[in-house]
């Protein structure tokens, strides 16, 4: 029955998507990023918080649509930029720089449970836990208020 191939293949696509997501935790390192909410808005497909990262700063490149960077843990336990290039290299996260602030598409917004959005937006000090795979994909794991 060839028609069964459709749900089977479609399930496979979703499973591959999920595996690619979990793989970042299986074969990667975990970082905690200092984060701040900004320009919060609430489009129709759910509540999420827009984030920016005060520690992810670039001095060499100030404005670029596509940069490639890796992270390292600094002495206070929060992640900072390790290496930043304008050309891709293995293990790099693809992101962008605006006014010296570095971000990546997966880091810009964080979906939260319905109702939690306004609280997190009003809290200025947040931290985001992410897993970064050795080939540069990101899995955001947690968003919470920073205790400091």
């Amino acid at each position, binding site marked *: 029955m060839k028609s069964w191939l459709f749900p089977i293949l479609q399930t496979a696509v979703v499973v591959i998507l999920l595996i690619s997501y979990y793989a970042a935790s299986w074969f990667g390192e975990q970082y905690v990023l200092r984060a701040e909410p900004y320009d919060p808005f609430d489009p129709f497909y*759910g509540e999420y918080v827009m984030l920016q990262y005060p520690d992810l700063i670039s001095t060499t490149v100030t404005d670029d649509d596509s940069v490639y960077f890796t992270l390292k843990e600094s002495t206070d336990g929060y992640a900072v930029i390790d290496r930043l290039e304008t050309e891709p290299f293995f293990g790099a996260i693809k992101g962008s720089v605006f006014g010296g602030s570095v971000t990546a*598409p*997966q880091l810009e917004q964080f979906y939260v449970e319905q109702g939690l959005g306004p609280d997190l937006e009003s809290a200025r000090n947040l931290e985001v836990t992410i897993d970064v795979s050795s080939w540069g994909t990101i899995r955001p794991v947690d968003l919470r208020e920073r205790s400091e």
Partner: protein
Amino acid sequence: MDTEHKLKQWQQAGLLEKETAERILAFEKRQPAPKKLPLLLMIGLVFLSLAIFSFVAANWQAIPDLAKVLLMLALMWLFYTIAHFSEKKVFGSPLLFRVIGLAMFGAALLTAAQTFHFPLANSVLPWAMFLATLAHYFYWRHLIYSVIGFFFGALVLLSFMPDIGWLEWILFIAVAVAWFYFSKEFAPVVFSWILLFASGFMLWGLVDYDSVLWPIWTLFALVLLLLIVPETKQRMIRPLYLIAAGMLIVVYLAVRGQTFIGLIDESQLGEAIALAVVGIGVLLLSFFKFRSLMWVAVPGVIGLLLFDETAIGLAVAAELSALAYLIIAQRQNEPLGLGFVYFIIVQFVIYIIYAWERLDMSVFFLIGALLLFLLSAVAWWVNRRKEGATP
């Protein structure tokens, strides 16, 4: 009963023998009554599904991440299974169930993206839906899949922006060409052609060289498609080429004539000349292969005419092509509808560009129009006499 009444009418009108009418009536009475789902059961089902949905929605936060996606996948499987049995046992609409199953696939992807914080800006989700829908189309060949496929194809194109890669672009064109080539019905052929034409606009993002003529280059490139399709399909897509060519002329005329944007500069003279040369190539090719499509070559002159700031050259080209198309189409007894629409639009655009601010000269236009009307009446009269009609 309606059948009984009709039969009696036909019998009275002498259209039907009495025996035949009786035999039809007896046959109709033997037919099993159509199975109907009891109304109460239907209302019950509606309420039950509403209850299930609100229960799931209320507890959505409490459901573990993975379970949310699995729930969507389970729904997808449920609808594909119902579709399978509805086809086998001939109940309900298998097509509808499959479309819902496909929608559930989209929902599973969206849920996965949302729960697992995937970036929604890239083109993975539209691509997955586009390819899945096309696969449905090629297996079941139903119009609805081509409509959904067109929608998601357009989403893929939109998701390419702002930064688009050559590989993805070429892949998209390959898929759209395959869809175009292997479809026989009108709708999928038109949809895939429109996607191909629209993918030409992506050249603005792909190539560093800043050209205003990409849409015309795209139209000329699409002429090559005509070489690989049989003649029936050529006839089917012919209006698309003519409409696209007409729209291009009108749009460039309107933009050049009505705005003060410097569309083109001297560094692009080479491109404009190249376009004109390719236009001549298209003209020759269509002259030998598909003569009714020679009009497509007309936009080839746009590149050169854009250098004229008054846009008079463009207006003349638009006007002449409109008139010539109408005259030739009428001589060959071809439909004139599209030609007329183009002709009227061209008149409007020219009127707005050149006459809007000179309304004090409207008497001049009125006299001109009356003269033209008179001339055409004379031409019609002479033509009529020539064909041998007696006044």
